[in-house]
């Protein structure tokens, strides 16, 4: 297949991939009236007179009038929305930061630990890592009840902090550091803590970036845990809330969605390589 043909195929596929995002973005700049006209498909009196049997949602990519009205409504007029955004941050931020810290320590421990049978223990981490979320939720729930932290963010945050995936990913990425670096530092009489901070950390930049990005995406999009642990709708993260906003005020939904997705999108634009690296490292070897 020629290069040109490849580009044509990729172009078609890419257009299909972009369509949902392009519609969401462009529609966020439309006026409330235009949104309502586009997405209300019930028939008017005139339709009936004209003999129109059904009306469908049209694909409108260019707003008739570009306005920031939706964004103002979402960000300024509706404090509730900002509150929900803050809820998402309150869940995501601690998980990203502390999971990174714990995973760095554990991964380094597994690298420098000289016990013969450490791989057996590491294998337990891998098995738990491979469990789908649904298999972990019930144990999460049981322990949250015992510790008295269900119905609070801690029930989501703690399992997130100790999730085995980070340890696995960072150990993979630490494996790329040449053994000679450790040897040299030990010869100079450096202690483990010194080696961890001054030899390992500087070489872990891309591993750290990859892990924090993957954890961020995962917890920014938290749905199942929130449904189970958070019954108070004021404490819900945005992900759960957005699925219900459509029933009420559809004029805001696009701007709300854009605000919500802009954070991970910006991170992707800044760190596309980090994400690719993270995915490659998740492949068990």
């Amino acid at each position: 297949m020629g290069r040109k043909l490849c580009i044509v195929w990729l172009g078609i596929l890419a257009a299909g991939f972009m369509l949902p995002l392009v519609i969401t973005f462009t529609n966020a700049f439309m006026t409330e009236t235009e949104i309502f006209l586009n997405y209300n498909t019930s028939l008017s009196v005139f339709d009936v007179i004209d003999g129109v049997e059904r009306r469908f949602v049209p694909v409108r990519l260019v707003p008739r009038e570009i306005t920031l009205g939706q964004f103002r409504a979402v960000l300024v007029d509706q404090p509730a929305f900002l509150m929900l955004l803050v809820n998402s941050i309150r869940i995501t931020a601690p998980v990203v930061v502390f999971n990174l810290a714990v995973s760095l320590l554990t991964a380094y421990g597994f690298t420098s630990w000289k016990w013969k049978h450490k791989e057996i223990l590491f294998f337990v981490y891998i098995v738990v890592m491979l469990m789908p979320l649904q298999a972990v939720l019930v144990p999460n729930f049981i322990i949250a009840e015992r510790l008295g932290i269900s119905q609070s963010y801690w029930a989501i945050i703690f399992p997130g902090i100790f999730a085995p995936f980070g340890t696995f990913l960072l150990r993979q990425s630490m494996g790329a550091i040449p053994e000679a670096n450790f040897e040299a530092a030990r010869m100079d009489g450096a202690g483990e803590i010194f080696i961890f901070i001054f030899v390992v950390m500087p070489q872990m930049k891309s591993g750290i970036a990859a892990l924090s990005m993957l954890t961020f995406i995962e917890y920014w999009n938290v749905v199942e845990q929130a449904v189970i642990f958070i019954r108070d709708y004021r404490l819900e993260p945005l992900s759960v809330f957005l699925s219900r906003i459509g029933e009420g005020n559809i004029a805001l939904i696009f701007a709300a969605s854009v605000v919500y997705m802009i954070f991970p999108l910006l991170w992707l634009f800044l760190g596309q390589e980090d994400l690719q690296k993270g995915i490659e490292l998740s492949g068990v070897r």
Partner: protein
Amino acid sequence: MNKKFVGTHKGFLFVLPGFLGFCVFYLWPFVISIGFSFLSRPVGGEFVGLYNYISLLQNPAYLLGLRNTITFIGLSVPVNMVFSLWIAILLGKISGRLKPLFVLVFLLPLVIPSGSMVFFWQQFFGANGILNGFLYSAGFYPNWLNSENARFVLLTIFLWKNLGFNMVLFMSGLSNIPADYYEAAAMDGASRRAVFMKITMPCLMPTTVIVVLMSVINSFRVFREVYLLMGSHPHESVYMLQHFMNNNFFALNYPRLTTATTLLAFAMMLLALGLLKLQKRVS
């Protein structure tokens, strides 16, 4: 303690804090959960042997969810693999500035929170939605969200979201195949088909096993979209194992929940062990 022991186990001090948390929030509750699955009630219940397992495997809702989940995995994993491999191969043939741009586009859905796309999917697949707008003019008016067709909706959303992940894995697998293999084949005048079957496929086997494993894990995540899009009681063709578990959460039916969890964890463990073993053999 002698010096040698300390030297060997110094690394454990770094593992310890994370390991304690891992025990408290994962291992220990797993053990409790397995224990509960043999009791009639979690508190003060008596040992009932395999009763919970037998009654779960006779529960029609559980069986429906199990069947749908297996069907969805069986359908989505191969389709996803074929498409992502195809895209990875296409990307391998182009270079220059366009390539990272295309990669970016296919990675975008991966980072988009499910919640922000729910309204779009509703409007796209709705009875009077965008898709039906096109199909209606061709004489069709299918029901997407509330019929057997819902499976197709799930597949579309799943592919949109997960193609990028497998694509990256395949791209890195493809780039690891030594270029001289292809040069040698070109010298022998091998056909494109032969090159693909004799070089590309065998060299990609280790990657493929990993892709299968990751796709199975990721395919459980489609529940997020089903749940946000169709609620806790969707059309029966897309009622998943997770719906069953989620709905039992609200009734807090511990015997059912823990039994279902134990079975799922056990099945996943067997699958993971099998695939990892297979991967060691092919690589």
